[in-house]
């Protein structure tokens, strides 16, 4: 392949004479093309303001360091699960097994991680590798076995949950306090560093060869193939990344709870999809931003916090959560559509 700046054809003389049309600015393009991300960030700001308001109404003070720390710590597992989910959503699939992978990671951590640096590092790595391995299995079923993503991951969800129960039949085990304080320090919002790290990983992913391939599949799989992209490998990688992040989410979940439970991960399958949607990730693939998904994960957690401070009867909490989500999704879809049209 020749370098692009050595023309094979003489340049069109009329082009130089005609002069170029003005280009729209980089920022204008970015805003117009990332409506979902912008809306997710707006939603996050709105959720923070609302949270402060109900907090003020209840306690006549503003939330402080403690609230920030606990919010970030509680959201970390969802941030990781949702980013994992988004890799698969980008390819126009869904990974339902995320909850099962988190359960297994959680159970393994509670059983095996002991109070020595060696054990902590070793078992963290092992759990992450297992997570990636479970994702790889999903990827092979979908990419090579040509199963529908929902079908394949629904099956592996049950399998992974079953293995998790086998590892830790009863809630129990324990997580060393040192481990907890490194991942989700209960006194200072150090976990924000992990949020930043996830954002950086996304930034790199978006600019990597595999990132382009995964986005391309979601755009149009046939076109991606026609462009010489190995669509099978990209699909398998997307599921593997999803498993890896689900494994990390399980570790954070164990660290937050300081003990293990092979069932607490289940809910994350659905909330990770919710966070993706709130974060502006297109469920039909090919469009979306990880930064938006991180914001979406925080909004999802903050909704629960807001409901808590609004003195909602806990019995009706999930009812209001659902209501809130529907309103948020409908609003953001409508606004997004309006913005795109008026662009």
């Amino acid at each position, binding site marked *: 392949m020749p370098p692009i700046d050595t023309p094979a054809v003489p340049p*069109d003389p*009329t082009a130089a004479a005609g002069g170029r*049309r003005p280009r729209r600015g980089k920022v204008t*393009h970015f805003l117009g093309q990332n409506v979902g991300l912008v809306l997710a960030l707006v939603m996050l700001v709105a959720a923070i303001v609302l949270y402060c308001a109900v907090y003020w109404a209840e306690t006549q003070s503003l939330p402080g360091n403690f609230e920030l720390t606990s919010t970030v710590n509680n959201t970390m597992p969802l941030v990781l699960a949702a980013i994992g989910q988004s890799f698969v959503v980008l390819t126009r699939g869904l990974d339902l097994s995320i909850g099962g992978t988190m359960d297994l990671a959680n159970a393994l951590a509670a059983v095996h991680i002991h109070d020595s640096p060696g054990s902590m590092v070793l078992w963290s790595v092992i759990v992450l590798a297992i997570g990636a391995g479970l994702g790889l299995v999903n990827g092979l079923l979908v990419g090579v076995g040509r199963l529908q993503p929902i079908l394949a991951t629904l099956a592996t969800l049950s399998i992974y949950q079953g293995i998790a129960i086998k590892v830790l039949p009863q809630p129990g085990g324990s997580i060393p306090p040192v481990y907890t304080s490194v991942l989700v320090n209960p006194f200072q919002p150090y976990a924000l560093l992990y949020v930043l790290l996830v954002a950086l990983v996304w930034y790199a992913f978006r600019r990597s060869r595999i990132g382009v391939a995964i986005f391309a599949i979601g755009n149009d799989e046939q076109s991606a193939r026609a462009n010489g*992209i190995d669509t099978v490998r990209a699909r398998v990688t997307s599921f593997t990344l999803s498993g890896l992040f689900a494994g990390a989410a399980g570790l954070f979940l164990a660290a937050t709870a300081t003990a293990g439970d092979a069932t607490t991960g289940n809910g994350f399958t659905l909330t990770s999809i919710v966070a993706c949607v709130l974060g502006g990730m297109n469920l039909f693939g*090919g469009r979306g931003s990880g930064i938006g998904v991180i914001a979406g994960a925080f909004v999802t957690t903050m909704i629960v916090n807001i409901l808590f401070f609004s003195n909602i009867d806990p019995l009706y909490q999930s009812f209001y959560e659902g209501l809130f989500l529907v309103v948020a999704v409908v609003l953001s879809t409508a606004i997004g559509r309006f913005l795109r049209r008026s662009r």
Partner: protein
Amino acid sequence: MSEATQTAGGVVPPAVEGIRLAKAFGGVQAVDSATFSARPGEVHALVGENGAGKSTLIKLLGGRLRPDAGEVRAAGRKVELHGADDAHALGIWTVFQELTLLPWMTVAENLLIRREPRGRLGLIDRDRMVGEADRVLTWLGIDHIDPRALIEDLSLAQRQMVEIARVIIQDPSTLLLDEPTSSLGEKEVAWLFELIQGLRADGKCIIFTSHRWNEITSIADRITIFRNGAEVGTFTEIDEDRAVTLMTGRQLEAFYPQPPARAHDRAVLEVEELAGEGLRNASLTLHASEILGVGGLAGHGHRELFFSLFGAQAHSGRIVVDGRPARIRSPRDAARLGMALVPEDRKTEGLLLPLSVRANLTLAVLPAVSSLGLIGGARERGLAQGMVDALKIRTPGLGNPVRQLSGGNQQKVLLGRWLLADSRILLLYDVTRGVDVATKHEIYELMMRLAGEGRALLYYSSDAEELAHLCHRVLVMREGRIAAELSAPGITAEDIVTAAVRESRAAD
């Protein structure tokens, strides 16, 4: 039969050759022992009807398909192309009719996919990528396309230009273009041809297919005609009549059938002062067994007229069907009044491509083919088979998905559905566009038969020649209104075009 070019420097082998190539899909022999050869430094046109095997040949030469028999040669040597990458390695690149751009990625990302400039840590440097894309677009003379724009925000013509640009920057030695001009306007075609001439001067080999004869003769050095999966002959000069005869095995003179005599003078559709987006007070009257043509330059309200009448576009004005005022606010209303629309873009409007020919045909008459709420049985099959026979729909069977049919035959399926529903007012919108000569002829014959049965046809065509020959009357639209009415006999294509561009006396 390999051929070589004698030059001052010696013998130059053909850039690319196909020797007795064969390729079948299912039971259909798409390419049947075809031999083809093109030289470096020439523009070689491949012409033939749809289904003659041109696209398949292009795919065989471009490495997208493997031949069942025969061989492909590049620069005189036999090559095995296991995929597009193999062809690319030999400098053979293809621009396809179905675009392969990624809609939600930017022009720059699409242009430079898999060869993006990389910066620190091996990550893609987006600003540099945009810069490089900008240089490419400027160099190719299409810098009105913004490298940061998403593909989905570009017009169809712009997308096609990006698709072409993307292949040009790979510096192909052999360039295959499958119907590159079908979505381009006049200006863009001129741009492409200038580009092709530059490549030819540079010693590249360019092979393209087209249905537009004047384009072919204006740029091609040689023309190879295909029929039924094999070459009929290669010519340096050939006139259109003879080419059409070779393509179809039929004479051009008997091409347009005579419209039948009008038996009735009963108005079935009266439209007064129809207005809406792109439409300004258009009025017309359509009679039973009449073929009423609508012509004019593209973009002067034809599409809006047809879609308003079919209830697919908001409008104001009076519509009278069979003497009774009608409110048409949705296609459902229109269908209930016995109206049917056959649009030009078959994929997006009307057909369910993955479903069978039978299901598509009987979709509008489900109650009639159902018993106890269940669809199916001999009656449905009988109706569908009857329509397949009557319209000569070429399909391997009733159960095959419509997707497998050629464009013209998909068109017929849609028409067949409305005929089964006994629609009496047929709105045919540019139904012959992009359809091959033989199928076009069948569609003409069919229109005559339908008019003869007493149905009323409103017929828009971008081809003024068709309107002049096929219609009882022709309305010429300009700026959303009816600017002129011409009556047969004696309408010529020139009359229609003149009326379309002339300052209308009615205005002001």
